[in-house]
């Protein structure tokens, strides 16, 4: 095998932080090469250096035998290196074909967009990737998974030899990820080399050939995945053995039912949802992206309220019209997207943390904030959750993803709920913080909190849940008891009737394969 890219002694510093120190490794032609490391390990910085978005302070990049001098991502793209960023960089108001050729439109006489050619070429590009999507459809009408594929399609316009994928599956469910991997494997077969950043261990072991582990900006190891195992990779990433989070058998017989949901429907995205949640119980909700899990949770929380169905709290039917009602009844919701829905990024850690409790009239007297009580409460949670922040006055937007997630959790716990719904508790959070968040949730359940966890991360649902509800196309497909729980059972329930569902890029074979295995 020959080397496509050699990274030699790359260092990159930002004011106050050395992001990369003397990173050296090689990427072989035609392989899928995973880059792993905790948040802040320097993965993204390294990828941006390789893709020309950042200039290294020292070191060289040797691409295909020649030293690279990149002036920007455009330059890198013209030399055969494309990057797909974690956040989608697409315009939802434009069509699929317009998005694919954004900035690289085929032209007539240099000024007018050649729409016919653009459309034909987009169709060809989609067909090459084996995706059945109408190039004239508006991008905003596609699912997130489909948009992710369009993003990859867009990066392929420049016919890259090296494609960098920065956490492409972080907002995809397992089944949607399979489609993405099929495309990635096709690309590999056609000779494209892929650098793949992910936090999902299993995904990496199932699909990649090599892994490079970074820690604190340093290169730790590059190895064939066949010569290592997940435990070793975690150890390399964290720099120590991580106390694995064990499954714990539930023992909540005789604990009272805290929340009962009966026949909850909005008529569109979720229908006839009924379940019970006991005090001290952690119930997982699994399912594909778009199965209606988050919408159902928001329906319980009154944002917006479900038009039909009954919610019973500790035996009493309650009426929840808006989030304020749910909060007064002791229901909290940690939303899926912490930046869009969970936090006010321009406000301090402290103000974010006390916002929910304050809305309930706590920490204030005749509407005047009690600064001492507030400060004490905030410090208490920062200590207990080990939130890493230079001060409570720091803007929450400047914290790392894991610490932001802890702030959202703390904000809701400060409101002293009896029922807590947590949507994607650890999305984009590194392994150490993940373990901390799981431990916290366990501790809270032990103290009697009823917790409903929505997660697209199968190992997470399995680890944390006492039992698992599975949703499919807006309905409860089934419930899996603690002893019967396995990834196969979940996927079988989540994806069984997949092909009958709304238009979706996943070919039926994947759903069936999952169901059979």
């Amino acid at each position, binding site marked *: 095998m020959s080397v496509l890219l050699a990274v030699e002694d790359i260092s990159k510093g930002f004011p106050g932080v050395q992001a990369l120190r003397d990173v050296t490794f090689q990427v072989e032609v035609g392989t899928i090469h995973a880059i792993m490391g905790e948040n802040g390990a320097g993965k993204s910085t390294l990828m941006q250096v390789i893709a020309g978005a950042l200039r290294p302070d020292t070191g060289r990049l040797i691409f295909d035998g020649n030293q690279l001098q990149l002036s920007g991502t455009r330059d890198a793209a013209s030399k055969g290196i494309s990057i797909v960023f974690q956040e989608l960089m697409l315009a939802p108001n434009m069509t699929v074909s317009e998005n694919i050729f954004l900035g690289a439109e085929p032209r007539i006489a240099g000024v007018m967009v050649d729409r016919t050619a653009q459309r034909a070429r987009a169709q060809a590009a989609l067909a090459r990737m084996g995706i059945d999507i109408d190039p004239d459809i508006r991008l905003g009408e596609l699912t997130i998974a489909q948009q992710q594929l369009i993003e990859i399609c867009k990066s392929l316009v420049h016919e890259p030899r090296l494609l960098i994928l920065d956490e492409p599956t972080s907002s995809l469910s397992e089944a949607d990820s399979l489609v993405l991997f099929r495309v990635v494997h096709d690309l590999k077969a056609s000779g494209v080399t892929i650098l793949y950043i992910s936090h999902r261990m299993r995904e990496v072991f199932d699909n990649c050939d090599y892994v490079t582990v970074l820690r604190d900006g340093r290169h730790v190891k590059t190895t064939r995945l066949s010569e290592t195992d997940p435990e070793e990779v975690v150890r390399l990433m964290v720099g120590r053995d991580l106390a694995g989070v064990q499954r714990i058998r539930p023992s909540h017989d005789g604990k009272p039912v805290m929340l009962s949901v009966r026949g909850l429907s909005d008529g569109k995205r979720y229908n006839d949802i009924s379940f019970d949640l006991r005090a001290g119980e952690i119930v997982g909700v699994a399912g594909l992206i778009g199965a209606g899990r988050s919408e159902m949770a928001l329906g319980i929380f009154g944002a917006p309220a479900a038009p039909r169905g009954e919610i019973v709290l500790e035996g009493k039917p309650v009426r929840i019209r808006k989030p304020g009602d749910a909060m*007064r009844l002791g229901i909290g919701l940690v939303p899926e997207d912490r930046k869009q*829905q969970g936090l006010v990024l321009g406000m301090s850690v402290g103000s974010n943390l006390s916002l929910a409790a304050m809305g309930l009239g706590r920490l204030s007297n005749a509407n*005047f904030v009690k600064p001492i009580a507030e400060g004490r409460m905030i410090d208490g949670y920062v200590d207990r959750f080990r939130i890493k922040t230079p001060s409570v006055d720091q803007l929450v937007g400047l914290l790392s993803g894991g610490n932001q997630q802890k702030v959202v959790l703390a904000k809701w716990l400060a409101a002293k709920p009896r029922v807590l719904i947590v949507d994607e508790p650890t999305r984009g959070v590194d392994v150490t913080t993940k373990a901390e968040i799981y431990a916290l949730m366990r501790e809270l359940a032990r103290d009697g909190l009823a917790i409903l966890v929505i997660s697209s991360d199968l190992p997470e649902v399995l680890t944390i849940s006492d039992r698992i509800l599975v949703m499919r196309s807006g309905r409860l497909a089934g419930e899996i008891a603690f002893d019967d729980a396995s990834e196969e059972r979940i996927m079988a329930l989540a994806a069984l009737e997949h092909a009958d569902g709304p238009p979706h890029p996943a070919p039926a074979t994947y759903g069936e394969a999952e169901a059979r295995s």
Partner: protein
Amino acid sequence: MSASGKAAPAPAQKSFLGRMLRSRETGIISALAIMVIGLSFFAPDFASPNNMLNDARNFSFVGIVVLGQAMVMITGGIDLSVGSVWGLAAVSSAAFMNIGFGAIPSCILALLISAAIGLFNGLCVTKLRMPPFVPTLATMSIARALALVITRGHSIDGFLPDDSIFFNLGGGATFGLPNPFIVFVVLSVIAGLALSRTVYGRQLYAIGGNERAARLTGLEVDRLKISVYVISAVTAGIAGIIEVSYLSSAISNQGLGKELSVIAAAVIGGTALTGGEGTILGVFVGAVILEVLRNGLVLLGTDAYWQGVFVGSVIVLAVFIDQLRKGFWRTR
């Protein structure tokens, strides 16, 4: 990202000097101080007590309205109708007095009319989900037209309320300070406390920072937003009434174009048009700077036609400096 959190020097942030330098107000207060010192030097008339008191009266009208505007802008909105509401409140208070109502009932009625317009703006923004620009642009036109309907283009000046207290409000002075200035200071203190010390204020910042998150945190977003439009309209009404009291007459184009001065003062004072940022101290100083600049240019004998160029430049400069401060003091 996580690294930047660790790297920031925690102890330095706590020090008084550090906080002073980081504060957005320090910049504009120093700018004001430089302007005042410079003007006192180059235009000796500027520092005369008479001129100073006159300035204090002049910036108070716009200043009072900026308080409400700042609250609207903190929630991420904007209120373009304040100049017209100012005019409508002015002529309606005068018209009520003209037909024999007492001073106090007339003022209350004029403020209620203002509040109604604010309520209309608020309802359009929240219940009808209109971008704030639209309903406030509409009421800017509507309120100005209503003022014209009331006056029919003439001035109202024959009114004589039962006592002279009304004229004292705008024209008089207490402890040597002009009454409008005292009203401005009192309202500023109230607004400042409301924004910095109350749950209400905290919630306004949260809405401006991230409305979706605020909604999902159970805040009564609609009610809070309506309240700021009502407050903004009422502050415009107060300014209009005090101006009538000062001028002893009312015409339909009072407050014409003032929405621009008000928004300019708010922006100079560090209020973000995108919401979530701004302080009362900042907009107070912003209003003062705007008037000192205008007055200073006159005293320095600048061509009046050029004034707008200076005011515009100051707006851009103030925002530019604010961006620099953010870029410099916040590690990214």
